[in-house]
């Protein structure tokens, strides 16, 4: 009898305790609540070169999905390939006091002062895939020196005089002021310095514009009809070079190595159909993931002061050629549907 009362009392206490618990209790793993609280309500500014091509669209997918999940805001400003407009947009975002600013500088020095200005205003700065000499808080993107080393190695392996070809190659840079282009140019100069088996017979710029690239490549091919290959600086621009090669009837005879984000249509498809011989991919989808990770990290662990401990998250590179073109890329439509 007394045992029944004790058991009944214990059961009652348990019921009472259970009833006192909230109706839909999430299991607190010790971190999720803190993370949600730190991310909620924050503002992230995003100023790519333009939202009009595949790379920023992929990066944005990562960002806005995380934003919806955690309740922070992503403010996108369209610079439309214009340095002036981009600088203005960054100034506006600094004035609006965003918490994290993600920028993609179209020119090496254009936003350098703005990075410092943002840091001084207490804003963490991430630079995506292209950077100014000063990092800010993080650089998420490709190691351009490494990319161009791979390109140079790739073309040397085919065009070198030691391999039986004539060693004549041409460089078609992007916009000279862009850091990727400058670093690339420097890296290639160092690689080819003093080499006897390769001659750089032409070095022109195409401003990231496919039509200009086509015109320039066409002229170079006329000057050097026996050219072995081109080193291009970006797959979207170098479609123009491929077109010029096709026009000259030299497809398959002239080598074209380039680099890019690894999107199916611009990268693997062009390698598969013979436009590009090799395309070094820095996997923009993976970069989207990295970018989101760094954003969440900076929002939870704000550096004090911003800019004091910069880090670099360099993207792993893959050489895409005919052997792995079938599976080496991601699709933008897929990323838009399912996220990175």
């Amino acid at each position, binding site marked *: 009898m007394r045992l029944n009362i004790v058991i009944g009392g214990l059961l009652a206490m348990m019921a009472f305790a259970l009833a006192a618990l909230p109706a839909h209790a999430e299991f607190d793993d010790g971190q999720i609540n803190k993370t949600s609280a730190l991310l909620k309500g924050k503002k992230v500014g995003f100023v790519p070169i333009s*939202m009009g091509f595949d790379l920023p669209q992929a990066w944005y997918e990562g960002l806005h999905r995380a934003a919806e999940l955690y309740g922070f805001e992503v403010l996108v400003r*369209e610079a439309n390939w*214009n340095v002036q407009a981009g600088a203005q947009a960054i100034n506006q975002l600094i004035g609006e006091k965003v918490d994290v600013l993600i920028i993609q500088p179209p*020119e*090496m020095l254009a936003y350098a*002062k703005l990075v410092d200005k943002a840091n001084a205003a207490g804003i963490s700065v991430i630079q995506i895939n292209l950077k100014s000499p000063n990092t800010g808080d993080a650089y998420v993107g490709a190691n351009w020196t490494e990319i161009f080393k791979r390109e140079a190695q790739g073309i040397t392996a085919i065009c070198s005089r030691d391999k039986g070809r004539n060693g004549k190659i041409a460089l078609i840079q992007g*916009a000279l002021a*862009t850091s990727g282009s400058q670093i690339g140019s420097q890296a290639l100069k160092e690689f080819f310095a003093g080499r006897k088996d390769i001659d750089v017979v032409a070095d022109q*710029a195409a401003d990231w514009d496919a039509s200009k690239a086509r015109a320039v490549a066409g002229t170079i091919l006329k000057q050097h009809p026996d050219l072995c290959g081109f080193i291009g600086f970006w797959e979207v621009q170098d479609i123009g070079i491929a077109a010029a090669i096709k026009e000259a009837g030299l497809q398959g005879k002239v080598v074209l190595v380039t680099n890019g984000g690894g999107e199916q249509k611009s990268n693997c498809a062009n390698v598969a159909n013979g436009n590009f011989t090799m395309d070094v991919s820095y996997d923009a989808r993976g970069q989207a993931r990295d970018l989101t990770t760094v954003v969440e990290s900076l929002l939870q662990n704000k550096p004090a002061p911003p800019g004091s401990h910069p880090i670099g998250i360099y993207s792993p590179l893959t050489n895409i050629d005919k052997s792995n073109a079938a599976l080496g890329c991601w699709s933008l439509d897929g990323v838009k549907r399912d996220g990175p």
Partner: protein
Amino acid sequence: MSESFSRWRARLLPGHIIGEILSKSWIDNAIPFLLLLLSIAFFSPRISDFFAAYSLEDNSRQLGELLLIVLGETIVVLAGGIDLSVGATFAMSTFACLGMFNALGWSVPSVMLGAAAIGGAIGLVNGLLIGYLRLRAFLTSLVTLIIVRAIFDALTLKYQIAVSMPNQKSDLWDFLGNGSWFGVPFSLALAAAIGLLCHITLTRLRLGWHIQAVGGARRSAYNAGIPVGRTVCSTYVLSGVLAALSGALYASRLGAAGSDTGVGLEVAALTAAVLGGVSLGGGRGSVVKGALGALIVTIVQTSLLRLGLGSGASEMILGILLLVAVAIDVKWLKNRLKVLAKVYVAPGYLALPAAEVVDERSPYALNDRLNAVELIGLGEIEGPEDVILDTAGNLYCGSRHGDVIRFFAPDHKKWDVYAHIGGHPLGHAFDRDGNLIVCVSGMGLYKVTPAQEIVKLSDETNRSWLSIIDDSRMRLADDLDIAPDGRIFFSEATVRFDVSEWMVDSLEARPNGRIICYDPRTATTRTVISKLLFPNGICMTLDGQSFLFAESWGCRITRYWFDGPNKGRSQVIMPNLPGYPDNINRSSDGHFWCAFVGMRAPTFDLALRMPGFRKRMVERVPHDDWIYPNMNSGCVIKFDLEGTVRDCLWDRNGVNHPMITSMREHQGHLYLGGSLNNRIGRLKLPGADPEWTGMRSYWQGGGA
């Protein structure tokens, strides 16, 4: 009932203000100003921190850089040209500045000078080709754009990296692009200072007038002796220098000169200029217009960027705005003068007392007394509004060619041009020293010395504070007379109309005229009596303390005391004349002559009491068909200070003197003039003192 309503309406509602505002030269700025307000009203609710300090500072910095280029472009367009090369000049300057500062390590002032020199050199190329060799501006500046851009591309290809690597740190250099004074960015301060200089040059200095003249009518400017080639060349040099300065500020701000620097800048500058109302054909424009346009473009661009619209949206909206602005501007340009002509005339209410009937019993009865005139200068003189004679008997009169004609005594058959002043010399008077003082309509008060030297006495009086029209200028100086102490009192018939349109003032029937006093002892001019209904003739009374003046549309003669115990008092001595009095002069028997330039008619008197009718007429009926007072017939009367008519002379058959504007008695004869006549009449006055002259009456015979 409706008449008193009309009267009160005309008195209370200042309808003439609308026309006066529309006639101002700055009314052209109203449309871009409206556009500016519209764009602010549109964007500020959509952008939360539109007016926040950082946003204003950012936008002002952009504005400053754009404004420098727009200033240059405005000046070039004002002179009738167009400068499409500013984008390339901007880019070249940016590159050069970075090179000078980073690679060569020059100091900041040297860099700025170098940039200005480069901009000036490019501008000079444009200027020499377009100004001196007379090539087409559009194509030439386009070619310059292409060539300079190509040079820029070639240089950046080679030296991009060398030029971009920062070599020295300079606070002054950073301040140029990023610094502010009390929240005002340096670029805006510089642009404002230069804008002020440009405005002063354009509106008040000779170079600016030359620029506007060349833009307005190049051939006429050339014929007038303006150095057209040099003027056009200087505008291009200026544009180049300003574009280069803007490039220097950009170089300091961003520290980079990529290949897309300055692309499309010429379009932005032209958009700003046209939005502001600068006419692409040349001759119409101002610094304020350019600044308004630049402000609108900056606000629209930055707001669209801030709203995060997709690629190309900003350019498209700006393009649509430009289209709308151009359409409004063209319509306004075409119709402004039409609207102005309709709106400017603002008829008022004037109720004259009923005119007395002129029959045989009236003192104004018609007669043939003027049939017996002898004619002087028939067919040789045009428009002798007033005549006067000196002690030697020479006769002087004005002509509509701007001359003072002298007919030699004693027969007045031979004549010469005594002085060529300009305008249309109206009232004449001799002063104590024999100088001929003349009121010249359209110009002011002039003096011709016995040595035939022309001296301008006055063409400017004090400006009234509440008048929208600049009434310090004289438009229609009509008649004058000289007080014993030498002060000259003269009438200005109307401040609202020029001499070519003086008849329209009769339609208005507003008190638009005034009497002005010029004091030769102090060389000052002051308005003495204002708000008169077309004051015309003035004549000193014999007591030396008052003068009589006629108000033509007021149909009355008033006596005003300017001196003595009654100073400031006025008394209407002839209130209800049957005609429109013109000049008044002394007669030999102590009374006064007055000429009637026309006679009142019942229709016109009725129309004056119906301002609504006259307003509708002005709006709907062509100018040539407007109702006017009768000015085809008039007479000469002699009256005394009590207002009694003592004599009246008509030319009933109207051959010689249908309309008389003045009469002058001299040695027993009366000389008649008419401002639309081509002859002077001389009538013998039986019983008049054969020795009496005006000179003796005024100055006891002194003078030449």
